[in-house]
């Protein structure tokens, strides 16, 4: 052990890991490289870049919430089904009427929060493994939804489509919203008591409990955030698709992909360490990958292979780095 003591606190961003900058660089390199290679340099102009960022929105928002769940040492497999529920509920309640927009949004957020509370309560009160608890809740949601709706239900009014299609100048509302939400999430994680408690519970739940932290409330809070983010993603997809269908969450594989990008972003699957900027960088990598394959005109299946390889490689790299990190 070294005798020296660094008494200068490192800046907060350093407490995460080196993952975000590396992933960012890798994504940009991939995107720019493929654009040049295929000669589609117009993809590097504003429209192309905006398109890339728009690819990030749906997965990005739900992954922000998933980051909270995973940092707290939990996980949420019900997000994909929650997204479907939110989208269908929104478009069903609105039924094309602008005056129902507010009501629909409020109902969706309330239902999402409730699902989060249920997830959290099952995990922290009944002590059911989070994997099983949220898998079960997800199946229940999907079952209820599929029993009630078999196809696109209702539609969203043109005013609501602005969520997905409107923009401030060149920046779409949705992209702006993603980054605002990410900044907000980052603020909550680093600068609030709730954030500190999430890291404590994820780092050592028993230690946190014995230190006087109400770990059940913290876990539940993380799941409420996670379900709310799924609800917001559902609203965004309803707006983008102009209507909600009971399969859009599943088709997007938002449950597994959100977990994948969180882990790629350097958050420990066991909890206690990580952050949203890494997650966002992971989302960007996936989006760049999609865009690159589109530019190359290759079928989507090799993309899956590559995604899988990236997830495994990322976790392997983190594991080796952590093990090698001996002071």
């Amino acid at each position, binding site marked *: 052990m070294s005798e020296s003591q660094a008494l200068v606190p490192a800046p907060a961003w350093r407490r995460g890991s080196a993952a975000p900058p590396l992933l960012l660089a890798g994504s940009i390199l991939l995107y720019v490289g493929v654009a040049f290679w295929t000669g589609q340099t117009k993809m590097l102009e504003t429209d192309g870049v905006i398109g890339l960022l728009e690819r990030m929105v749906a997965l990005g928002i739900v992954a922000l919430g998933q980051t909270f769940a995973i940092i707290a040492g939990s996980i949420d497999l019900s997000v994909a089904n929650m997204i479907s529920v939110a989208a269908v509920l929104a478009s069903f309640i609105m039924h094309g009427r602008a005056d129902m927009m507010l009501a629909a949004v409020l109902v969706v957020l309330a239902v999402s929060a409730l699902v989060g509370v249920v997830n959290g309560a099952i995990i922290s009160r009944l002590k059911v493994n989070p994997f099983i608890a949220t898998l079960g809740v997800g199946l229940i949601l999907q079952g209820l939804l599929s029993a009630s709706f078999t196809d696109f239900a209702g539609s969203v009014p043109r005013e609501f489509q602005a969520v997905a299609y409107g923009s401030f100048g060149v920046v779409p509302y949705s992209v702006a919203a993603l980054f605002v939400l990410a900044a907000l999430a980052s603020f909550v994680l680093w*600068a609030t*008591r709730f954030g500190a408690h999430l890291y404590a519970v994820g780092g050592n739940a028993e230690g946190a409990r014995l*230190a006087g932290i109400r770990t059940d409330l913290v876990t539940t809070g993380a799941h409420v955030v996670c379900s709310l983010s799924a609800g917001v993603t559902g609203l965004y997809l309803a707006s983008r698709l102009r209507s909600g269908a009971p399969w859009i969450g599943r088709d997007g594989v938002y449950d597994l992909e959100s977990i994948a990008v969180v882990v790629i972003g350097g958050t420990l699957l066991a909890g206690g360490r990580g952050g949203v900027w890494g997650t966002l960088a992971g989302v960007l990598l996936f989006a760049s990958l999609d865009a690159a394959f589109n530019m190359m005109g290759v079928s989507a299946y090799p993309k899956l292979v590559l995604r899988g390889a990236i997830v495994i490689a990322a976790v392997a790299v983190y594991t080796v780095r952590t093990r090698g990190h001996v002071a």
Partner: protein
Amino acid sequence: MEQAALALEMLNITKTFPGVQALDDVSFGCARGEVHALCGENGAGKSTLIKILGGVYQPDSGTIRLDGREVAFSHPIAARRAGISIIHQELSLLPNRSVAENIFLGIEPTRFGLLDRRTMREEARRLLKRLGSSVAPETLAGDLSIAHQQIVEIAKALAVDARILVMDEPTAALDRVDASRLLDLARKLSTEDVSIVFISHRMPEIQTVADRVTVLKDGRTVMTAPLAEAPTSRLVRAMVGRDLTDFYPPRSSQPPGAVALTVRHAGNKRLHGISFEVRAGEIVGVAGLEGSGKNAVARALIGDAPFESGGMEIGGRAVKSRNPRAAIQAGLGRLSDDRKREGLLMQQSVRDNAMLIERAFAPPLGSPTAGPMSPEATDKRLIQLDVRATSFDQEVQFLSGGNQQRVIIARWLARNPEILIFCEPTRGVDVAAKAEIYKIMRETANRGRAILMVSSDLPEIVGVSDRILVMREGALAGELSGGAAEEDVMALAVAQDRESQAMAS
């Protein structure tokens, strides 16, 4: 007993770990059919010696002979093949596998390449019968009581035809009836020419079961004698006798202050009739054997396994520790005996770890880095406690045990509770850091805090405490003043007189 070659001889064994001489020229032997008790305090070197015998560690120097032939075990499997079986304190049965499957784990008999379940069952039944047990081989191990699991462990040892059986505190988790049954079994096996190394610090047991006794202290053999020459009093003296230099901080010259904590007739599943007081400025030691309930008292006070009856007062106010949060709010704090599991956030920074308690009680909307939780205030505390790390951003898992303990102390000093409970404050901490931790405890008491120190380390109990409470079987067995003889504490903890008579009869 010396006519033939001994079944087991360990000669001049020396083993050094970084910074610690664990064993220094230790010799130990066991004749065929002998029960040889091995005793010594925590850290005396018993477990290192056993691990060398079991092939887990290799000695730096020295030789091991079995029946006169020199052997060297490079791996635990080599030791097992040579006929050495070790039954650890924590049983290793697979709870969801049957008794027969457990007994033949790794040595499953096969027929035509397939598992021969019938032979397994029959052999298991035969082995268990030899041990006087009627447990069915089909039973799941997890469904058995601890006592029966222990017998299955012994059967497992016999299945590999063990000639040397090491039992590491086998009765620690057993009640008196099961314990004496196990002792009978050990004697019976010894008549079948099995050599038994019996590790225990329960004096009455040793008196009942052993032929010879060896005492280790600070990595050296301090005595080896036939039982007849080793009455309990001599054993205890051999175990604890040591020089106490200025290792422990001087006790306060001031009389203690007002009563900080009162516990009256309190009890729960593990404890009954607990009544005591701790005054401000006092360090009260809580001693007792493993399972005596001394840790249960700490857990009850901090609300982890709360008292279900009786009352508790802090500073004269009646309080209830329903859960850890309520207990801490009432003015209590506890440093766990298991830093890794219950204390530290291993992969988080030293600083984050030091802020944990303050963060737990921060106002809901406040910043977790403001006021007493600011990095500056936290760093100041860590520097005061002389925490050594490459930086306070370093993950706490990379710190030494002593430094980790200081980080936890820093965490509690930030909260500065009225009553601070230290559980095994120096477990896994080197000698120099131990003295530092005692000093911090004494300074904290001198600042008017009340301290309860739960410890299995007798010298520490006697050297640091102002008063000593001794626990036995879930109740207070008695109280001694600070500086009492370790023998007296031990005597209260093991109920030397009455129990030895009861067991001998």
